[in-house]
């Protein structure tokens, strides 16, 4: 269980997040939504331990030190938004870095096998020998997701994991995140811009606006036109498909 109480985050003299309180439960995917500049990435980095904050943050019943930042919490798997790199490292070696803390001079066969299995899980086995700089942005994002999952984190923090992916890979990534969250009992917080992806894959939602948490709760309760319209500043319509699923679409005028 991740339990945040009255989190305040400042970058320089600017207050980016104010009075953020929420809970994220294990085995559930929590979608972090909000307009650009609302503080989603800042909140994710704070949860990862990379930014200092004021307030309280409890992870699995224990308080976390929020004073310093700069160091990833050992339980976290954090996927940054930016996947650009000029590295000529191979995909297999890049994913292996997910085990950075345990890597010695020699790499065991088990570690190599774990990498291969992780690549196979995400359908990336064919890319194993390719260099990172030769991949598309979407492929790189998948590789870095494999890297994060190889850390076997208990708190999974993903910053826009599907924003650079085509539809097939969006489905694949979000299904994998949901499966891993359920199977391993992970607590997953995922920044998304796609409201329908949040509807389809998230159990809970945190809705941010201008550094404040404006709504939190079950996905179906929060992702309604009435809640979303004032946050995003557009009229949103909700429709239901023949299979009973909800679909949100902005009013195109």
């Amino acid at each position, binding site marked *: 269980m991740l339990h945040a109480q009255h989190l305040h985050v400042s970058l320089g003299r600017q207050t980016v997040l104010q009075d953020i309180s929420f809970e994220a439960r294990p085995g559930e995917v929590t979608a972090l939504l909000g307009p650009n500049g609302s503080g989603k990435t800042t909140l994710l980095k704070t949860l990862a331990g990379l930014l200092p904050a004021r307030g309280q943050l409890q992870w699995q019943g224990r308080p976390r030190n929020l004073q310093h930042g700069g160091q990833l919490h050992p339980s976290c798997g954090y996927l940054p938004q930016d996947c650009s790199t000029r590295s000529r490292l191979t995909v297999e070696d890049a994913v292996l870095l*997910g085990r*950075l803390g345990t890597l010695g*001079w020699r790499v065991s*066969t088990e570690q190599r096998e774990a990498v291969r299995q992780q690549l196979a899980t995400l359908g990336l086995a064919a890319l194993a020998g390719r260099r990172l700089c030769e991949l598309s942005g979407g492929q790189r994002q998948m590789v870095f997701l494999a890297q994060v999952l190889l850390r076997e984190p208990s708190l999974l923090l993903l910053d826009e994991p599907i924003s650079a992916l085509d539809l097939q890979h969006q489905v694949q990534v979000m299904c994998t995140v949901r499966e891993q969250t359920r199977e391993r009992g992970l607590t997953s917080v995922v920044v998304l811009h796609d409201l329908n992806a949040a509807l389809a894959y998230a159990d809970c939602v945190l809705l941010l606006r201008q550094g404040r948490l404006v709504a939190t709760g079950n996905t179906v309760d929060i992702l309604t036109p009435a809640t979303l319209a004032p946050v995003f500043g557009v009229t949103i319509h909700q429709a239901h498909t023949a299979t009973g699923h909800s679909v949100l679409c902005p009013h195109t005028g």
Partner: protein
Amino acid sequence: MSTLSLALPAAGRRLAPAVTGLLLMTGLLLLSLLLDVASGPSMLPLREVVAALTGSTVERGTAVIVWDIRLPVALMALLVGAALGLSGLVMQTVLHNPLASSYTLGVSAGAGFGAALVIVLGSTLPLPETVAVPLAAFLFAGIACSAVLGIGYAKGGQADSYVLGGIALLFLFQALLSLLQYLASPEALQAIVFWLFGSLYKASWPKLALVAAVLALCLPLLLRDAWRFTALGLSDERALSLGVNVPVLRWRALAIVSLLTGAAVAFVGTIGFVGLIAPHIARFLLGEDQRLLLPGAALCGALLLSLSSLLGKWLSPGELIPIGIVTATVGVPFFLLLVMRSKPGAW
């Protein structure tokens, strides 16, 4: 029990070429060392050099030439080349800048200023010039490094702040050096210019021992962070997401590199090009795995400087061409050839 493999790039598929590359470089290095010792105003047959080095009976004159004159110079080329190659690689990695070297951070300029200051002050100092010049070069290299590290630390450990701080110091020390050259007597000016060219002929066994000790201290410290350097090669944010404390790693690496560079330039002067080119050649041959790259860059640097020393002797027998001139004139075309032949985005 788990089976272990060296598991170098891509599950060992490129293990053989990578290790072969390192072995080949080591072999070339030994050959270059032997040829360097054999070459000079009086050419020695290779078997006599080998005999002298292995302690077999040779003429006394040959033993003196090999052990007292040529071997210290040839070994200094290896050690300084290794130190510069290694420091260049680490600077380029932690600063994400392919142009980073001891020049970029103003370290060489600092050392040059220190040496020039002592040369100008000359007889007013209590120490003999042979001791005072390298000592001042080392101290001012340290001062330059400390200033760069301080600037970087004050700006939160960002790569750009180190580079910008280094460039600012480079211009500052160059300006101060120009001032000293302007004020220096003709004799002092000549000595300053010769020091700045870089020369291996200042080598001696005690100096060698000092550079070797610094290298022996720094290389294991850097190798201990090999995986973290590999992660940092992806990007700062990616390394942070893998649990690397990037500002601390960057500061630590640059502090170690400062020591390496200071020790190298103090005894031979400013030999700049090796620190820039050796890491690129190593990366071209070995990929991005820093477990291979760190020793690879050291080997490349050593080989480059040793071959340059050899070439200098062959181009102008009996003359002492400063090594810095040879490395730049021969190295630049070779480096440009590599750049032109590489794939887009590889540099």
